[in-house]
């Protein structure tokens, strides 16, 4: 009796509480309105605020594999080199380096004033330790293969040898790091700014969970982490031990983890973010044309070295016929897609390697025009008819285009399928698949047409072209060409950039002639930056560098 009564009273009390709460809270909000603008600092030292979409999967450089982690690594760590705005490698923790004449040995000089965020000096030993740690099989680094250019690295990583003694990474003294390569790799220097090449403090071996908290992360970059609220935000403050701290102007960098693009934009528009959009955030695609009018001075479109394409299963009818593949590639209007569907300033692509990748001397794509094919509906119809005739088919069979679940991919697929329907009179089904399911299907060659995309790992056409060697891990198209394989091999073995680019140009031509993939566009990143913020830029891959940014009131 008594308990029942009190239970009921309790419920009633809860009710009343809820009503009171519901009735009262809106009043408080008016009082708080003014306090929300956190960025009250004046021009001298401003905090830079941007969105990184989600929790970084790790802050251990050896395990990093996504651009969220990469964006944070840019602030917290620093490799031997950095990329400048034009994509050139410039001195960073290494003040200088020497390449041997055969291109197989690099000797880096670590600057004397390089320090960890706890004040310890950064030495060549730290680099040797860190790189070998990344290669150690039990570290479980998925990007360890980025070290395979180094002598002995692959064997060690694949556990073919028991220890790292044979790996060509050696600290000759505190300041000197010697690296021996398997073959002359012209883009090796470019790799040394990649996040897996970042050093870690040797104390990490004593604490397995060191990368989980702000307190235990020791970096050598321009900033250090002051606060990490998991799933919510990360705050960086300048690293007082950084050798170049005079060039670090921001009082701090605040990262929010907002996954919803509309929320991100709303935060930018209400003054809670200084930067919105790619690489780690996103501006809702449909808002871009509107913002290009209303926020002309803040919005920036920057092409990045990534390709968007569809791949065909060339083992399966009808895509085992090159004319059918070509017909499909020629029958769509790429300009209409980038203008009306994707709307982020993408560039229609008629080749595979995107602009922004260095060729012999300048941009590969300006040296080698991507005019491997043209859009031509009449020609496409003719090719399709011929192709089907060769396959002894009377009509186009039922095929399905698969893509991983995403609104953007879906929209593009819908537009392209509709173009095929209108221009070629063929019906292609659309099916979105969960990413893992799609990847499994793709590896198992269980698809007909599939969406794919590729971004550069390093600044060389090879990062694209070596994908399609026969039985390559990424080559799920059935494409196999001995000539192609030979050209790639030749380019890999050569230290002469002219010879390499020639071989790679030929390889790309073979790829486009065979057309296991149908290029659609080269990606571009769209972002908005509040007026006054200077020297924040995206590199050729679209990765953001905010470390030397500053604010100047206008």
């Amino acid at each position, binding site marked *: 009796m008594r308990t029942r009564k009190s239970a009921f009273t309790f419920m009633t009390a809860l009710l009343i509480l809820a009503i009171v709460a519901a009735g009262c809270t809106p009043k408080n909000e008016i009082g708080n309105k003014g306090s929300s603008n956190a960025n009250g600092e004046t021009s001298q030292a401003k905090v830079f605020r941007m969105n990184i979409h989600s929790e970084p999967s790790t802050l251990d450089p050896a395990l990093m594999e996504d651009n969220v982690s990469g964006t944070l690594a840019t602030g917290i760590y620093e490799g031997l080199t950095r990329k400048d705005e034009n994509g050139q490698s410039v001195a960073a923790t290494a003040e200088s380096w020497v390449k041997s004449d055969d291109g197989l040995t690099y000797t880096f000089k670590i600057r004397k004033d390089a320090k960890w965020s706890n004040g310890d000096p950064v030495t060549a030993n730290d680099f040797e330790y860190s790189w070998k740690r990344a290669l150690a099989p039990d570290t479980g680094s998925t990007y360890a293969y980025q070290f395979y250019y180094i002598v002995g690295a692959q064997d060690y990583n694949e556990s073919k040898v028991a220890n790292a003694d044979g790996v060509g990474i050696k600290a000759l003294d505190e300041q000197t790091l010697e690296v021996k390569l398997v073959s002359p790799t012209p883009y090796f220097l470019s790799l040394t700014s990649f996040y897996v090449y970042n050093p870690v403090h040797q104390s990490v071996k004593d604490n397995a969970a060191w990368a989980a908290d702000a307190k235990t992360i020791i970096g050598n970059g321009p900033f250090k982490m002051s606060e990490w609220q998991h799933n919510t935000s990360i705050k960086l403050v300048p690293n007082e031990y950084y050798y170049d701290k005079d060039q670090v102007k921001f009082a701090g960098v605040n990262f929010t983890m907002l996954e919803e693009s509309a929320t991100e934009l709303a935060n930018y528009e209400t003054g809670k973010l200084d930067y919105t959009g790619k690489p780690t955030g996103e501006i809702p695609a449909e808002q871009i044309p509107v913002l290009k009018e209303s926020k002309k001075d803040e919005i920036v479109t920057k092409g990045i070295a990534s390709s968007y394409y569809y791949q065909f299963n060339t083992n399966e009818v009808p895509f085992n016929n090159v004319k059918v593949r070509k017909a499909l590639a020629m029958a769509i209007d790429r300009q209409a897609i980038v203008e009306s*569907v994707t709307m982020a300033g993408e560039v229609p692509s008629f080749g595979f390697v995107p602009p922004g990748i260095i060729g012999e001397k300048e941009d590969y794509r300006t040296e080698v025009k991507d005019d491997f094919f043209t859009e031509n509906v009449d020609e496409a119809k003719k090719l399709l008819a011929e192709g089907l005739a060769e396959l002894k088919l009377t009509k186009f069979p039922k095929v399905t285009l698969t893509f991983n679940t995403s609104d953007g991919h879906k929209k593009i*697929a*819908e*537009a392209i399928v*509709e173009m095929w329907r209108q221009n070629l009179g063929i019906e292609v089904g659309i099916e979105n698949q969960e990413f893992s399911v799609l990847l499994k299907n793709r590896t198992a060659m269980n698809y007909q047409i599939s969406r794919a995309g590729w971004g550069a790992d390093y600044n060389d056409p090879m990062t694209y072209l070596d994908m399609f060697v026969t039985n390559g891990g990424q080559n799920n198209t059935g494409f196999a060409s001995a000539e192609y394989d030979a050209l790639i091999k030749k380019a890999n073995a050569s230290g002469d950039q002219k010879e390499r680019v020639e071989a790679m140009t030929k390889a790309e031509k073979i790829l486009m002639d065979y057309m296991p993939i149908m290029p659609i566009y080269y990606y571009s990143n769209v972002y908005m930056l509040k007026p006054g913020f200077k020297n924040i830029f995206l590199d050729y891959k679209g990765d953001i560098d905010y470390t030397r940014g500053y604010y100047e009131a206008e």
Partner: protein
Amino acid sequence: MKDQSFTPDQFTKLGNDKKSSEPVVRESISAWKDAWQRLSSNKIAMLSLIILLLVSLMAIIGPHISGQDFQTNHLKEKNLSPSGTYWFGTDDLGRDLFSRTWMGAGISLQVGLYAALADLALGVIIGGIMGYFGGRVDEILNRFCEILYSIPSMLIIILLIVIMSPSMFTIVLALSITGWISMAWIVRGQIIQLKNQEYVMAAQALGANTARILFRHLIPNAMGPIIVTLTLTVPSAIFAEAFLSFLGLGVQSPAASLGTMINDAIKAWTLYPWRMIFPAAVISITMLCFNIFGDGLRDALDPKMKK
């Protein structure tokens, strides 16, 4: 007595046939006819029924009457507001929203209807059994429900994607595998409360069999919460279908459902509100009419509510 004069012959006895100047008893009518009379005199309920029929009709003919088909892209005419050519405007690929909305309505209403039927069949029976038998039967079935309810439905959906191809059947299957559990719990609760009432005990004492007690006495008395739960099932099934589409199991483009249309429209609703408003309005109005008609139907069928 009033100042009224009667004649003696008025005080002669009447034959049995002339006793009344009017029929004495109301025409006796069947229960169904009675219910229909009560329902049809409920004007709002009838209006709802008419709207529901209209929506169903539009779901069938709607995609064909605007002169625009649902899948043709007009990239030059995307995101147009409603006009003479495009009655509901166009979407982000310039497709006619009028045709798409009604096509989507057809698909979504089917999904909602089938999911509701599945919930009703499974949920009411299993919930009834749990509530009525109690004890070990209840414990085991209840735990089974809890386990099934706790298994991430996404795993089940992905499994379905792998072993089946997208179709209405797969959609309804995916929605129903766990959908009925809430219904079963609601029914169980009601039956547990109702089975202690005298009329049930009386029926038990009289030796009525279990099925009869369950379906004649208990479930009709739990109809209120059952109907309310059903009215929640329908819209949630419609939106769950959109989630299935997202995972690759639902309706695949270029076909559309109201759920996927709203999902697409939400990204730009501040710019192109009509893309969201029309499909959302169809769902809301349908649900409103469904609820009002459901209430009317229950009032008409349930004699308890007559007073």
